[in-house]
């Protein structure tokens, strides 16, 4: 028994190490000027990356806030659209359900480049190209499949019985949704929301095609540096990206948890 425990611990620490070490290297690289072979540690450190990012003339911070705002809005819209769709797929029985379940994954399976050009032309005609709204719309395309997929599973588990109970006891549909369905699916909403937020935050191609350079997000500043091999700049932006995502996830979790702590029924 004890031996098993050791093996478990070693595996766990090994896994954690494997997950953390690339991040550590990223942090180191964001301060490294030169790190030649065969030196074990970098030869020279500098602050060029963070200086550039924090310099107001590069507008990096403004871009960061815009990205966070955009992705939050996309997350909200995605969840609003996905809840009804997921409920239909998870709870109701209808013809062609399997087909629709597959179809909803299409945007992930079909490469975005293939459809994006068409979407771009359609958006130009609709006057949505180069607008904030257009970018929000186009982000929904890769985001909805993830949200629907996760929430469908949640609905499959919680079923409809609780809601029916509430309706029998005289609750209106809206009351049922707010007091019963939402609390039940809160953990699912949280994971779907986090995933969608990250998917939206990391969109590069769709954002610049539809945003046309009017809407600049974090990946658009980061990718040129990754391409040109400027490891210090790329690491710096990556760290900012990761930290932003982490903070947003923590905030989201905190909000959901606090909300249900006050009037908790189901949230564990």
């Amino acid at each position, binding site marked *: 028994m004890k031996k098993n425990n050791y093996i478990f611990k070693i595996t766990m620490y090994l896994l954690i190490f494997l997950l953390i070490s690339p991040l550590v290297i990223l942090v180191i690289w964001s301060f490294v000027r030169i790190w030649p072979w065969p030196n074990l540690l970098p030869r020279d450190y500098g602050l060029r990356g963070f200086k550039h990012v924090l310099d107001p003339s590069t507008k990096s911070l403004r871009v960061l806030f815009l990205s966070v705002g955009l992705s939050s809005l996309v997350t909200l819209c995605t969840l609003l659209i996905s809840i009804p769709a997921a409920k239909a797929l998870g709870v109701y029985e209808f013809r062609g359900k399997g087909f629709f379940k597959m179809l909803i994954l299409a945007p992930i399976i079909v490469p975005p480049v293939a459809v994006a050009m068409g979407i771009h*032309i359609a958006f130009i005609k609709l*006057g949505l190209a180069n607008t904030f709204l257009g970018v929000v719309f186009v982000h929904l395309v890769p985001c909805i499949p993830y949200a629907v997929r996760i929430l469908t599973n949640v609905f499959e588990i919680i079923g409809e019985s609780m809601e029916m109970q509430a309706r029998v006891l005289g609750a209106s549909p809206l009351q049922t949704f707010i007091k019963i369905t939402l609390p039940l699916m809160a953990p699912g909403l949280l994971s779907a929301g986090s995933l969608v937020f990250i998917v939206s935050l990391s969109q590069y191609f769709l954002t610049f095609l539809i945003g046309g350079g009017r809407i600049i997000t974090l990946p658009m500043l980061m990718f040129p540096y990754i*391409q040109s091999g400027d490891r210090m700049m790329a690491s710096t932006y990556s760290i900012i990206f990761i930290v932003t995502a982490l903070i947003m996830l923590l905030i989201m979790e905190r909000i959901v948890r606090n909300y249900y702590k006050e009037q908790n029924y189901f949230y564990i």
Partner: protein
Amino acid sequence: MKKIVTIALLICIFTLNLTACSDSSNKEEENVLEKNWEAITEDAKGTTVNFYGWGGDQKTNSWLDNFVARRLKEEYDITFNRIPMNIDDILNKLLGEKQVEVKNGTIDIVWINGENFYTAKKNDLLFGSFTDKLPNFKKYIDGDSLEVKYDFGFKVEGYEAPYGKAQFVMIYDKAKLNMVPRNHGELLEMAKNNPGKFTYPAPPDFTGSAFVRNIIYDIVGHEKFLNMEADKEKIEREIAPAIEFLKELKPYLWKEGKTYPSTNAQLDNMYSDNEVLMTMSYNPNYVSAKIQTGEFPKTSNALIFDKGTIGNTHFLTIPYNAPNLDSALVAINFILSVEAQSSKYDPENWGDLPVLDNRKLNEEEKKIFENVELGKGTIAQDILLDHRVPEMPANIIPIIEEIWQENIPVEGE
């Protein structure tokens, strides 16, 4: 309920559509080229100009964000907005817009050259001939020089204004390499003495392709390529000695030439990590910029072949649907000023070669350029210009890249 939602959505979309249409129809259809320069600068006041171009170099970005943006604001009250975007994406965007005839685009200035310019011009994506309108172009630039008249062998016809000059150099570390190769033969010797410590990026990487062309020039000369038609068989015959040389060089390359770095960025990082002894660049002052950021060892140095290395010019152009022509012209004119070109030439800021004609500068202006302190490891401008050979026509380049692909990496496998 569902119907109401659908109708509401449709109404939303249609109103958006209408507002978008009215936007573009409201645009004044006056011809900028008929206005005089004072009127143009006057109309440019208080507007924003959107500059689209490659954004992978932090120094270049900082120069545009700090110097150009600040000076344009001070001098002309123009807000300069830099948008990092690769040229392929810019062209795709413009092609998409052209397809549905968007009159009011988002791009005012594009950083461009070579085959991309050719593509853009061929597809009518550009505004037209505008360089005659720019006071600084008329004052400082030799409009008859080949480098201004032709861009990779294609007639410019005023559709783009020169922005900077580049020249191919190779970079080595003085501390590690005693013998500096001055021609292809010495390069081979160097590779033989240090097996596995030299390589070049695989074409069609921009710099790797330039390296291959430079080897071709060094072996068979450059004159015959300038007017050569894009005929693969003929080119294959002409460059055969160079291909033979590359085959001979191959076993001494990094990983015995079985694989090549796919981008110049990788090669730079390999040089910086001490995995290879040399890297290369199409910007002659790149080495001092990289020494300053600390990425390259301080003993790095640029070198050119005795027979010369390829140089080209990069340009700024205006797309056909630029929303703000006035300030695009003012901004490009400013970039052609002595002040901007000398600031750009300073390796502290960027280190890009100026495009102004030395003969057209007065003594004071010449002094400004002479006073720019070239950074470590770079080659003086007059030596570079003496060893400068022109680019091949853009339509030959993909053929050479193809021949390289067919002959070099596959051989012996």
